């Protein structure tokens, strides 16, 4: 549906997106992940024809965005909820958008109703909170009943209620069979909503795979073991094809076999276990690992970045 081929975007001598290629399949929720400054917004701007690529092409259903007959019927995009004229009322804002694509006025009322802004429809959007602006922006994306929805960091700065609302809305939209392309630097958000992931760092593609594969591709799950005979167990596990490494606190981290197998080995060898826990790699860790070299603005003193296998 959305095809990005060899997309490169340079601002002056700074390369924001570097030879990026991916495609977004219809009917999926695709998460677009990357640290801040990885080129996510730039990529979205290029898809929407707001920025012109330095090289490469972007097509939507085989067409350039500029050539779509009714852009709002194909793609509903929200990059920046504050990108509205604050002096205009919510109703008039949506009306002027609807009119460009010949959409009926009653559509505006329906969209306002849907996002819960009917009561403030005649109020100028200048006074809206971020959450209300977000709702107004989303109302705008839904006016044209588009097959594709694009959201850039939709939960950024929202309160928990707003986050829940957006999350539920995205799920509902996906359930209707719409294609959703949503960017975030918050992994936890993706873990709950996305089927597919496109991960970028420093403007380059790092991963393009299903959520499952992405988590598996990282160090993956491991098993944490506490035992009274660590050396013996390490050897026994190695003999069965796994690897066990001793941690600072005396626990062992076992990779390459499930907890059940570790337990069986210990039982066979008569080794006493005090703990046997499966540690599932979270998306967060997988992401940290993959993008470790691709973080553009790194703090001088790095906060304790959890290494794979110790998380919960």
């Amino acid at each position, binding site marked *: 549906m959305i095809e990005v081929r060899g997309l490169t975007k340079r601002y002056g001598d700074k390369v924001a997106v570097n030879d990026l290629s991916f495609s977004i399949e219809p009917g999926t929720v695709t998460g677009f992940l990357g640290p801040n400054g990885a080129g996510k917004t730039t990529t979205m701007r290029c898809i929407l024809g707001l*920025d012109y690529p330095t090289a490469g092409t972007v097509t939507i259903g085989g067409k350039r965005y500029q050539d779509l007959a*009714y852009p709002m019927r194909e793609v509903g995009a929200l990059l920046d909820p504050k990108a509205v004229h604050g002096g205009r009322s919510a109703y008039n804002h949506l009306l002027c958008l609807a009119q460009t694509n010949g959409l009926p006025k009653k559509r505006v009322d329906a969209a306002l109703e849907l996002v819960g802004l009917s009561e403030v429809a005649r109020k100028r959007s200048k006074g809206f909170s971020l959450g209300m602006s977000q709702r107004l922006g989303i109302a705008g994306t839904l006016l*044209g009943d588009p097959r594709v929805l694009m959201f850039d960091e939709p939960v950024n700065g929202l309160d928990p209620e707003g986050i829940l609302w957006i999350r539920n809305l995205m799920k*509902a939209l996906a359930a209707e069979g719409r294609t959703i392309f949503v960017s975030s630097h918050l992994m936890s958000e993706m873990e709950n909503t996305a089927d597919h992931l496109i991960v970028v760092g420093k403007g380059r593609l790092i991963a393009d795979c299903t959520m499952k594969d992405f988590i598996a591709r990282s160090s993956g799950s491991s098993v944490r073991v506490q035992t009274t005979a660590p050396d013996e167990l390490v050897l026994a596990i190695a003999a069965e094809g796994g690897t066990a490494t001793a941690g600072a606190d005396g626990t062992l981290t076992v990779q390459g076999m499930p907890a059940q197998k570790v337990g069986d080995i210990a039982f066979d060898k008569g080794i006493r276990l005090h703990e046997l826990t499966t540690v599932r790699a979270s998306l967060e860790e997988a992401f940290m690992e993959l993008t470790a070299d691709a973080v553009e603005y790194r703090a001088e003193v790095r906060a304790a970045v959890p290494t794979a296998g110790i998380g919960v």
Partner: protein
Amino acid sequence: MTTTTAPSGSSGVLLEKLPPAAGKAGLAGVIRSEWTKLRSVRSTYWTLIALVVVGIGLGALICFATENHATHLGHGEVLGFDATSRSLTAFVELGQLVMMVLGAMVITAEYSTGMIRTSLTTMPRRGTVFAAKGLVFAGAALVVSVVTAFIAFFLGQAILHSTGDSATLSDPNVLRAIIGTALYVTMIGVMSFAFGAIIRHTAGTIATMVGVLFILPLIVEVLPSDWTNDINKWIPSSAGGQLIATIPGSSDPTLFSAWPQFGVTIAYTAVLLIIGAVLFRKRDA
């Protein structure tokens, strides 16, 4: 998670399907949209009210002053003043200042608010957006200008009636002066709109226009007089004075006559519009 059921609350009731549409989103829809944009912000009304106040109110004040002066001197001693010009001078000189603010804001406000990104996402054919914006602004500006110019003229003449020098629509050049000034003020607004598309910044655009309309003539004025005469006819603001002059003595003989002089203003505006349109299409939004 595509199989999750719709959540509860208002977001659960999603919008109904739209019937399919034939053809392509084009100029007509964008013109309607731009009209909605123009009429739905307060700054439009404030600037148009300012235009009317300046054009009609200040115009009337100038005519009162003239009438008062003439009455004190007695008839015959201020013979030959251009009554049409008196009634329209405030509209031309200050009305253009107001109109250029509105012309600039129509496009620069899109950039200062970020609205341009939303506008161009819903309608990515930028040439169409630029044309619709320009047409809607120019149309609205022209209507308000024509109405203001006529009212300023009639009110001014009513005030000047006692001097015996007041003009009527059927006098030579009067209709040209009224329509011409309305067109000139509109054209200055369009020029400002074009600068706005190039500069994309409200204050920068207005500063540039003030430079072109008010500072440039002053600079030309202090040049050696034969230079002044040569250059003056090629600056965009010279048309205003020529257009409002209806009797031989009140126009500037070193300039072109009214319409050709206005042609100079149009030519500059056209060039700036082309540059503005090209940049509007080519630059990242």
